[in-house]
C-alpha cells in the first residue's frame, strides 16, 4: 500500500484527476487480454496517467526512491499478462500520451508519443501517401508503446517485417527517472550498443518508452486478395515456400487448417468440402495493374503445381473484403466451438511449418482435445488454439500438458516460444528451456544494470 504522502506527490505530478485509487478503478487496471484469471485481482495500489515525458520521469524518480513497483500499460490488449501489475504499486497508463509530435517528410519519419494508437499512426501516414506496415490484429486499439514493448508483428510481416523494422529511435525513461534518447534518424548508426533494439520487445521491464521515431515507406498503390484451397497441408505450405523462393513475396499469407475452415463454415452457415485440408488467404500489392496481375498469375501457376483445388482471385474490393472477412472472423468462429480457448503464439523456421502442424495434430489426438491451427504461414508464426472446458478439472490438466508439449515441439523443430505476443506471465515457466540458463542469466544481468531495484514490471519474463 502506498501511503498518503506518496499519493499526494503523484497527484502533484500528473494532476489529481489522473491519479485513480478507487477500488473499481484499481480493478479496471488489474487485467489484460491474456487468460491470466481475472480473480484474485492483481490490483495496482494506484493508477497514474501521465501526459508528458517530464511527468513520467518525475513518477519514476519518486517510485525509484521509494522502491515502488511500476507496471507500464498501453491499452492492455496484450495476450501474455504484460501489463498486469503483479506486485501492486503503480499502474502507469500511457494512453493519454497521444500526440504525433513531428512529421519529417523528407526522411519519411514520424515522431509519436507512446499512447498513439496504431490505427491513428497508420491513418496519419495513409493521408500522406505513406505506409506504416506493422499491423497486429489489435491495431485499432493497441498503442504504439505497447507494440514496441512487445515488438508486435502482424499479417504483413512476411513482406514488410515487424515493429522493430520501423523503429529508428526511442525516448525512454529509465527506472530512476533519467530520460535517454536512443538511435535517431540516421539510417546507418553504430554508435555504441543498439539500445533501440534492446528496448524494443523489453515488455516494460527495462524502461518506459515515451516517444518513438518511426520510419514510413511509400504506400503501395494497388492491392488484391487471393484465396487458395488445398487437399493437403503440405501442398499449401509448399506453395508458399515456392512462391517465396521464386521472388513472389505476398504482403500477407494466412494459413488455416481444417478445424478452422469447418469452424468458419459453421459460424457463417456455409458449406465447405470436408476434403479441403488447408486454406491460404494471400494479399498481394504492387504499383500498377500489370505487376499485380502478373503476381496473381504466378501464384496461381505455383498453386496448380501443388494440386490446388480452388483458386479465387478477388474481382472487386468487395470480394477481397469477403475473403478477408473469413480470416478476420476466424478467431470468434473458433472461440464459439468450446467454452474456453487457449490461444498460443509460437514461431518456427518457415520450412518447419508442416512438421509443427503434424506434431500439433499428434498432441491433439494424444490429449483428446481439438486444436485449431492458423497462422502467418509466410513467416512461420503459428497460433494453435486448444479448445476446451477449463471448468472440468480433469480436462484442464490435460490442456496444460498439451500446451507444454506444444512449446516443447516448437523448440524441437528449431522454433521459439513466442512470435509476437511476448513472454509476460503466461510463458515465463518455459523461458529457461527456450534460452538456456546462460541466456536467462544474460537477460537478468541487463535487467540488473538498468533497473537495480527491480521496480519495473516485476514478475515478468522469468520467475
Amino acid at each position, binding site marked *: 500500500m502506498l501511503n498518503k504522502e506518496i499519493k499526494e506527490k503523484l497527484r502533484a505530478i500528473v494532476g489529481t484527476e489522473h491519479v485513480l485509487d478507487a477500488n473499481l478503478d484499481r*480493478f*479496471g487496471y488489474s*487485467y489484460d487480454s491474456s487468460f491470466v484469471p*481475472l*480473480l484474485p485481482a492483481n490490483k495496482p495500489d494506484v493508477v497514474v496517467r501521465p501526459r508528458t515525458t517530464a511527468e513520467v520521469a518525475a513518477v519514476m524518480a519518486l517510485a525509484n526512491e521509494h522502491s515502488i513497483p511500476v507496471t507500464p500499460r498501453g491499452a492492455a490488449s496484450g495476450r501474455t499478462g504484460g501489463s498486469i501489475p503483479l506486485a501492486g504499486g503503480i499502474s502507469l497508463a500511457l494512453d493519454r500520451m497521444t500526440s504525433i509530435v513531428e512529421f519529417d517528410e523528407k526522411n519519411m519519419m514520424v515522431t509519436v508519443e507512446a499512447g498513439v*494508437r496504431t490505427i491513428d499512426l497508420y491513418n496519419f501516414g495513409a493521408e500522406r501517401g505513406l505506409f506504416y506496415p506493422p499491423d497486429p490484429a489489435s491495431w*485499432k486499439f493497441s498503442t504504439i508503446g505497447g507494440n514496441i514493448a512487445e515488438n508486435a508483428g502482424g499479417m504483413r510481416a512476411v513482406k514488410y517485417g515487424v515493429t522493430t523494422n520501423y523503429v529508428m529511435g526511442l525516448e525512454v525513461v529509465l527506472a530512476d527517472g533519467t530520460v535517454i534518447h536512443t538511435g535517431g534518424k540516421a539510417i546507418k548508426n553504430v554508435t555504441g550498443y543498439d539500445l533501440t533494439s534492446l528496448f524494443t520487445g523489453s515488455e516494460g521491464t527495462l524502461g518506459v518508452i515515451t516517444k518513438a521515431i518511426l520510419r514510413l515507406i511509400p504506400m503501395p498503390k494497388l492491392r488484391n486478395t487471393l484465396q487458395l484451397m488445398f487437399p493437403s497441408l503440405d501442398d499449401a505450405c509448399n506453395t508458399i515456400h515456392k512462391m517465396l523462393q521464386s521472388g513472389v513475396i505476398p504482403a500477407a499469407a494466412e494459413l488455416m487448417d481444417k478445424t478452422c475452415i469447418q469452424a468458419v463454415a459453421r459460424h457463417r452457415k456455409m458449406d465447405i468440402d470436408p476434403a479441403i485440408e488447408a486454406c491460404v488467404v494471400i494479399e498481394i500489392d504492387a504499383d500498377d495493374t500489370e505487376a499485380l496481375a502478373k503476381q496473381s498469375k504466378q501464384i496461381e501457376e505455383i498453386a496448380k503445381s501443388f494440386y490446388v483445388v480452388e483458386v479465387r482471385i478477388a474481382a472487386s474490393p468487395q470480394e477481397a473484403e469477403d475473403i478477408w472477412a473469413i480470416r478476420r472472423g476466424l478467431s470468434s468462429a473458433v*472461440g464459439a466451438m468450446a467454452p474456453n480457448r487457449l490461444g498460443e503464439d509460437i514461431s518456427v523456421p518457415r520450412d518447419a511449418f508442416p512438421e509443427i502442424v503434424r506434431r500439433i495434430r499428434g498432441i491433439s489426438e494424444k490429449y483428446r482435445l481439438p486444436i485449431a491451427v492458423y497462422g502467418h504461414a509466410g513467416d512461420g508464426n503459428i497460433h494453435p488454439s486448444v479448445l476446451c472446458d477449463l471448468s472440468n478439472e480433469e480436462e484442464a490438466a490435460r490442456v496444460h500438458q498439451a500446451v507444454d508439449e506444444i512449446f516443447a515441439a516448437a523448440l524441437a523443430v528449431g522454433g521459439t516460444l513466442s512470435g509476437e505476443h511476448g513472454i509476460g506471465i503466461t510463458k515465463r515457466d518455459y523461458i529457461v528451456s527456450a534460452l538456456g540458463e546462460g541466456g536467462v542469466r544474460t537477460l537478468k544481468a541487463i535487467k540488473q544494470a538498468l533497473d537495480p531495484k527491480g521496480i519495473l514490471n516485476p514478475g515478468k519474463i522469468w520467475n
Partner: protein
Amino acid sequence: MKSTGKRDRLQDVHDIVSQCDRCGTCLPVCPLFGVKDVEAASARGKNNIARALAQGGLDATPDVLAAVNFCLLCRACVDTCPSKVKTDEAMMAVRQYFADATGGAGIKYKALGSVLKNRTMVKLASGALKVMKRVGINRLAPYGMAPSEFTREEYLARFAGPAALGAAAPASPATLSDNTKVAYFYGCGMKMMFPEAAKQTVAILSTLTEPKLVDNVCCGLPHLAHGQKEDFLALAKENIRLYAEADVVVSECASCSSMLKHTAQYLAGDPEWADRANAFSRKVMGFTEYLVKAGYKPRQKVDATITFHEPCHLGRGQGIKKQPRELLQAASNYVEMPGADTCCGGAGTFHMDYPEIAGVVLDKKRQNIEKTGAAIVVTECPVCLVQMAKAAEKSGKFRAMHISQVL
C-alpha cells in the same frame, strides 16, 4: 434469461460476461469511453466488473451499481465485439440484481416506472407533462424536457418553395395484402411529447391501410432497464393480449419496436406465454421498416437538406438502416452525417443520471450534424428526438423533427 432467483440473476450475468476475453476491440467504439477514458467506463471494464461481482471478487457496493448504470445500452460494443458479448443485457441484469437485493429499483426509477405503467397517467401527461410536474418528477423523467415541436405545417411552409418537386405523391401502392390487419403501437414518449408527430404517423399509415388504434400500455423498456422486471413482464403480457388480433404491429418509436421485438426472449421460459410472446414479437415492425415493405412513397419531395440520426434501437437494435435513408432520399436532399449511428446520449434516463457526460456525447453529435450543413435532423425515436431538439436549440443552425413529419 429464464431464471428469477437472486443467485440465478448473477448466473445470467455470468453466462453473458464470461464470454468476454478482454480483447479490447470494443474500447474505441463506446461513446462513454470516448468521453471518460478510464477502464471502468468502457464496455470491457463494465463486463469485467460484472464478472467479478458474479464470481465473488467484488461486493455489491453502490459504486458497482453506478458503474453498470453508466451505460447507454446503445450496443455499439456488442456490434463490434468478436464474441458478440451482450453488454447491454448484462448491464440490465446487474441492475435487476441490485433492485432485487435492495428491495426495488431506485426511487426515481420507481416513480418513473409507475407513471409509465399507468395508462391514465401517461394520457394525462400528454403534451404538457402536467402529471409529471405535479408529482414533482419532471426533472427526473426521461422525457422531463418538453421540447419545442417543429410541426409538419411549419416545415412545409418553410421548405415547400419553388424548388419543391410538385405536390403530394400519388397514393402509395401498398404491397402487403389487403387483408393484413395492421395495428399501431402508441409509445409513451410519442404520446407525452410528440403527439403532433404521432398524428402524422397515423396519417401516413392510413394512406396504406386502416390502422387499428389500440389503447396499449408501455412497452416496458424503462422498467426492464432499471430493475423492475416484474412490471415489465406484466406490461408485456397486457400488450400481447391487446394485439392478439393484429397481423402487424407498427411503432414509430424505435425503442418500443425494438423492445417489443425482443419481448419473446424474456418470456421464453414461461410455458404459458412463450408461444404467444413469440408470435407477438414476430409481428412487430419499425415504422420505416413497414413503410418500405408496404411500398410507401413519400407524400412530397421538398428542397430541404435533411440528415438522419440513427437510433441505437433502430439500427443495431433491429437492423433497420437502409429503410429510413431510402425514404428520406425520396423526400428531401438527403445527406448522411458522420457517425450517424453513434448514440446521442439520450438512452432512457442516462441523460438525467449523468447530465455532463450526456452533454459531451450530444455535443459531438451536434457537431456532426452541423458538418452536413443540414437544415433538419430527423430521427425515429422520441428519446433521441428530445436530444436532437436540445442540440438544435444549442446550435441554432438546424431544426429537429420526427421522420414521420417529413415523409
